[in-house]
């Protein structure tokens, strides 16, 4: 009760009771302690001389990165094409694999709530927890470096993203439309085709384009672990300490990401 009687017999008001306030202070204290403790554990091995040196290092780096060596641009067109392909084909493969997973995971369409649904949800969580760079790392180890590893890495990461958003949409469809289709004597697949598919189509298109946009961004760096695309050139230039080339690549990546974001925003606006 925030209202209580003071000794002077006036009615006082405070936003929270004594106990609630104590709890809040305790919570804040705990948060601060945890953060400080984490900071200390994290920095056990930090060499502070390097850190104090950071502004000088940053200045040095900037000095070396400027002016950009534009001539390297000629070598970047093919990697950029590869980057685009990794994102697009990877998204396509991710859609092909992710859509069935979504239908198996949605409570409204799954064939079995007790067995199939948990498995589908596990696939989604596993795919979402692991960044596409780690998928790429794994695939490069398994099948060797190249664009194919990148495509599959992008696809594996996209399954979870598309699967999650789509199964949530499937669980929120208008049940009356489904009921009406059921009442006509439609079979299970027909109910999905006429009841569910038209309802989730706009969401599905939006999700796919959005994921494609994210995938462009991610595929620019997959080359760092050997999966093809512009990241491969970036890695080479960084290890050769060819900083003027790195600047050009940064600019190329930024432009690619900006263009893909613009395209994705336009397409999504057109769909809705």
């Amino acid at each position: 009760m925030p209202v209580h009687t003071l000794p002077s017999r006036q009615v006082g008001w405070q936003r929270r009771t004594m106990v609630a306030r104590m709890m809040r202070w305790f919570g804040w204290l705990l948060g601060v302690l945890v953060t400080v403790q984490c900071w200390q554990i994290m920095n056990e091995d930090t060499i502070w001389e390097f850190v104090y040196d950071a502004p000088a290092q940053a200045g040095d780096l900037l000095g070396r990165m400027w002016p950009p060596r534009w001539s390297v641009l000629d070598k970047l067109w093919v990697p950029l094409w590869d980057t685009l392909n990794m994102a697009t084909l990877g998204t396509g493969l991710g859609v092909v694999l992710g859509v069935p997973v979504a239908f198996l995971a949605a409570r409204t369409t799954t064939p079995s709530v007790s067995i199939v649904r948990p498995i589908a949800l596990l696939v989604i969580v596993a795919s979402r927890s692991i960044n596409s760079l780690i998928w790429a790392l794994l695939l490069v180890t398994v099948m060797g470096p190249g664009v194919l590893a990148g495509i599959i890495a992008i696809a594996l990461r996209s399954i979870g993203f598309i699967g999650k958003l789509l199964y949530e949409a499937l669980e929120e469809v208008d049940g009356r439309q489904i009921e009406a289709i059921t009442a006509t004597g439609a079979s299970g697949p027909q109910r999905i085709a006429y009841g569910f598919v038209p309802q989730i189509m706009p969401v599905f298109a939006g999700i796919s384009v959005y994921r494609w946009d994210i995938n462009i961004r991610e595929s620019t760096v997959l080359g760092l672990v050997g999966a093809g695309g512009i990241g491969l050139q970036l890695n080479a230039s960084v290890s050769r300490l060819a900083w003027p080339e790195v600047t050009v690549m940064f600019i190329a990546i930024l432009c690619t990401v900006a263009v893909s974001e613009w395209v994705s925003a336009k397409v999504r606006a057109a769909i809705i």
Partner: protein
Amino acid sequence: MLRIRGLTKTYRGGDRALDGVDLDVPRGQLMALIGPSGAGKSTLIRCVNRLVEPSAGTIAVDGAAVTGLGGGALRAARRRMGMIFQEYALVERLTVMENVLSGRLGYVGFWSSWLRRFPQKDVDAAFRLIERAGLGGMHDKRADQLSGGQRQRVGICRALIQDPALLLVDEPTASLDPKTSRQIMRLLVELCAERQLAAIVNIHDVALAQMFVQRIVGLRAGRIVFDGTPAELTTGMLTEIYGAEDWAATSAAGDDEDDATPQARAIAARLAEEAR
């Protein structure tokens, strides 16, 4: 035609929506089902096509049992029962034609329905029905571009293209204005007469029901408490169905048409008739 015996439905949590309902509807009869909200009207018609699973009792259409069927046999039974919904329940993002043809889903295979390749005779039937329902030329409009009355006409076409023996109609006019409500009811009556269909119509608006149907069944708390012609539905019967209410007071208020509920209006109309 339709034969229901001892139909009982108990929902999880113990709500008894239907309690031993016996009901026969002969071929060609348009029957209105009235009763207060929660009386079990909606549950009753959904039990007939098994959208709701009955707890006990039997249902038979044309002598063939519907209860106990599963899988393909249940789907085949559902084809013979057209259903029309309160909020139309059209697939909003499909065209009028696709919505109407979806009534044929029980008859065609998955791939032909997925590719929208329906048999030409189905397409012919769909065009005829669309024309008959007064929607000529609208077949490629999307359902979400139609007005309420037009949507309900599409809903009626979808039910009729199933070539049903029985129509289950759930509050067809509850979302429509009074004029459109009458048009829709008239269309239903005409189509049922043309095709000699049996129909159960759940309806709130008692006056509208009396205007159009041959038989009225009153449901209260899951039991049938009235079964007779519209003329036999007296004030006393209405009290029996809807519970005690000062009907005279309602009738006085009933002059103010806009504020009155359809129920109140119906009852006011009855009283005025009896006073004459």
